[in-house]
């Protein structure tokens, strides 16, 4: 008994940080995902000349909680002839895979649940691919033809774009030379330039592929009502549906984190290696102070006492966060925490920007039809990402031949990027021509032109 307890204590002493992170993530992520949904609704409303949720709580801030409560107390409907075990398991698989993938990601040098895995990126990508099981099993367990069709379509889409995403990641990994997440960010720090700048084509390809990976517009046909049903999610009501939804938003965070880590410098501030730009370390504090001041200015303009108090509370929170962000920069005793705290801020900022881009595209673009979606993936994105890997490889060889380091590497990679852009345009126009040649004849078969 004693050795067992002792072994447990040893384990906890070593791994209390990742365990804590894990618990925090699982406990908090539903809340965070709910608030990401709220942010999306508010952004959508803003772009659509309206206000969004305003009723529940001040400015609608309690909306996610109300939604979660509502979903929890809804009746749990299970289709009659469905396989109950699989019906229960499917959303669990989706959410489990998504949350597990989060374990491999790091928002700061120390904040990682699965510390220092050698295969970091591969682990994340592989586990999030397991989420596809959740979709297929969900569609199958619904015992409905339409749901199954929708699930198969969705999984076909995910698998196709997984390839493109993977090749884009390979291009980035060619620069990094390692799969370990911390090592990738350190490589970007020592290179002094983000890998996204070195290979913008890879970043672009990963962006498009990740939108398709998470079933977001313009690739959200499997979820849209022109599918005649809501796809694989139709038969899931109440909390089961909430789990799928949570899985989708968690996946969004995962792909944003992977892109940030590999292409956008992870937790590094812009120009992390340029020391005369160290004053940029004050930027997070400045930003929070500005937001706090803006909240303070808006306090008198609030319609009611409750709103005013609330705004004051938000302003106070902003100032507290600003102080927390200032401390590691100014106080010498807090210096070891500088990379962690400031790094988390930069990481979250970049993930936020990436998610903002997701949302912006959702509100602006119409939806691709399924065959157009698949054609885009196979005829455009995959060839482009493979060509990009070749070009990046050649650029790296040229770079090492001429011994280009850091920023100088851009001299080699920019021509590669330009050639990649040209290749993209060529691929697009070829696909356009073959597509427009195909469509009328197919239709003409059926009614003689």
């Amino acid at each position, binding site marked *: 008994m004693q050795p067992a307890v002792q072994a447990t204590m040893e384990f906890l002493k070593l791994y209390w940080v990742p365990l804590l992170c894990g618990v925090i993530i699982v406990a908090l992520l539903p809340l965070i995902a709910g608030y990401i949904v709220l942010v999306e609704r508010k952004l*959508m409303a803003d*772009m*659509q*000349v*309206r206000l969004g949720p305003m009723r529940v709580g001040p400015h609608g801030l309690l909306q996610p909680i109300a939604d979660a409560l509502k979903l929890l107390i809804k009746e749990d409907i299970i289709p009659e002839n469905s396989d109950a075990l699989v019906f229960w398991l499917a959303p669990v698989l989706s959410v489990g895979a998504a949350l597990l993938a989060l374990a491999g990601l790091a928002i700061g040098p120390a904040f990682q649940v699965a510390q220092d895995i050698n295969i970091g990126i591969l682990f994340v990508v592989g586990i999030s691919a397991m989420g596809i099981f959740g979709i297929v099993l969900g569609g199958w367990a619904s015992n*409905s*033809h*339409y749901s*199954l069709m929708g699930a198969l379509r969705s999984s076909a889409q995910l698998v196709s774009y997984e390839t493109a995403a993977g090749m884009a990641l390979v291009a980035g990994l060619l620069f990094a030379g390692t799969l370990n997440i911390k090592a990738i960010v350190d490589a970007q720090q020592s290179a002094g330039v983000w890998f996204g700048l070195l290979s913008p084509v890879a970043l672009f390809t990963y962006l498009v592929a990740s939108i398709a990976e998470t079933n977001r*517009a*313009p690739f*959200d*046909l499997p979820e*849209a*009502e*022109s*599918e*005649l049903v809501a796809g694989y999610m139709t038969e899931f009501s109440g909390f089961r549906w909430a789990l799928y939804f949570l899985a989708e938003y968690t996946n969004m965070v995962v792909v944003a984190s992977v892109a940030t880590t590999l292409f956008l410098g992870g937790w590094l501030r812009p120009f992390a290696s340029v020391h005369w730009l160290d004053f940029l370390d004050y930027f997070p504090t400045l930003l929070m102070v500005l937001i706090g001041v803006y909240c303070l200015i808006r306090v008198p303009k609030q319609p009611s006492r409750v709103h005013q108090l609330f705004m004051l509370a938000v302003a106070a929170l902003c100032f507290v966060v600003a102080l927390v962000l200032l401390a590691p920069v100014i106080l010498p005793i807090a210096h070891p925490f500088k990379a962690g705290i400031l790094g988390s801020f930069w990481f979250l900022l970049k993930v936020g920007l990436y998610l903002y881009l997701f949302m912006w595209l*959702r*509100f*602006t*673009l*119409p*939806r*691709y*039809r*399924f*065959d*157009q979606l698949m054609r885009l993936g196979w005829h455009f994105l995959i060839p482009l990402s493979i060509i990009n890997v070749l070009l990046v490889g050649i650029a790296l060889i040229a770079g090492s031949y001429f011994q280009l380091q850091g920023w100088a590497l851009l001299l080699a990679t920019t021509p590669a990027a330009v050639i990649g852009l040209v290749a993209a345009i060529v691929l697009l126009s070829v696909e356009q021509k073959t*597509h*427009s040649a195909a*469509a*009328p004849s*197919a*239709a*003409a*078969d*059926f*009614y*003689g*032109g």
Partner: protein
Amino acid sequence: MGEGESGHRKRAIGEYRTAGEVEGETPLSTEVTTEHITQLGADELVINMGPQHPSTHGVLRVKLKLDGERVIGSECVIGYLHRGVEKIGENRTYQQFAPYVDRMDYVAAVSNGLGYCEAIEKLLVVEAPPRARVIRTILTELQRIASHLLWLGTHALDIGALTPLFYCFREREEILKIFEKYCGARLTTHAFRIGGLQYEAYDTLEKDVERFCKDFTSRIVEYEDLLTQNRIWLGRTKGVGILSAADAIAYGVTGPVLRASGVKWDIRKAMPYAAYDQYKFEIPTGTAGDTYDRYMVRMEEMRQSRLICLQAIENIPTGPILAKVGKVLKPPAGEVYHAIEAPKGELGYYVVSDGTVQPYRVRIRPPSFVNLEAFDRMVRGHLVADVVAIIGTLDIVLGEIDR
């Protein structure tokens, strides 16, 4: 009042046509069992876009026969909104029937009212005074813009663009405010009376219309920025739902659908009514007859309507607004068919009078009813995802189809 929905009546499995017989004009057999739909592995599948569906723009039921992904046949089941308006018409006086007419195409009530009032005026052989005709023209053109805006927003929403809907409704709101100031109602306006107008134009009508028209150009540019050159929009609408000019005429299709197929015909130019002969405007036509052309035609029509409004408000004649028709209307026995260019197509009123205060027969020829007949022709060979785009591009209103 249509057929009941899934599961309540079991009928025998009917005969299914094979893909080779697609070219015939005969529709699907109506004997379909719902159990068959959930069996996997069938080569052909009949699926149902039921009357309750977010994208059918009303209670329309569409039965689609699929071969894998492709639609090889379709059948529209209508009648869920049938209210017996034509029968009611025989039991009301001419003036009493006027509000019913707004409720048919409830999206463009002012046009319906215009057509009806003009038809009865033709029956009575009276003419509305010039001032009334010009104000009628202004309101009808504003209503055309409003109807097309609603069409654009919902059509874009079906194809997945979430944002144009709200922009379009923002403009539509301005027009509805003008209607509200004019006659008190936004949607079912009953704006016109037989013989002219009841209400004088309110004092800032011209200013309001002018302000709306001035802002409207930049708004159309907004919509076009979002959609017209967008790759995805082009991919979803070009080549989808092609209707040739010969087919369009044969199927009696009218309105923007006909014009997009290449037939340059607009009742406002061919047989002018109200004050349309006084104004200069173009008739946009398309060439390919696909969804994209119909979109472009309607966008251009909005611009032309705006031009008509601007021309009209420059010179509204003074004078009476109501011809002397008396309180009791007893048109001489006979009949009349009067058609106007409603936003959706040719809206025709065939009114038979027997000399009494109530019409003997009121027949309304709804443009959407006839346009929907062409749906089967347009949808064959397309994928299921295109069905929604094609329903949207026809711009149907079930209130008008079912009456």
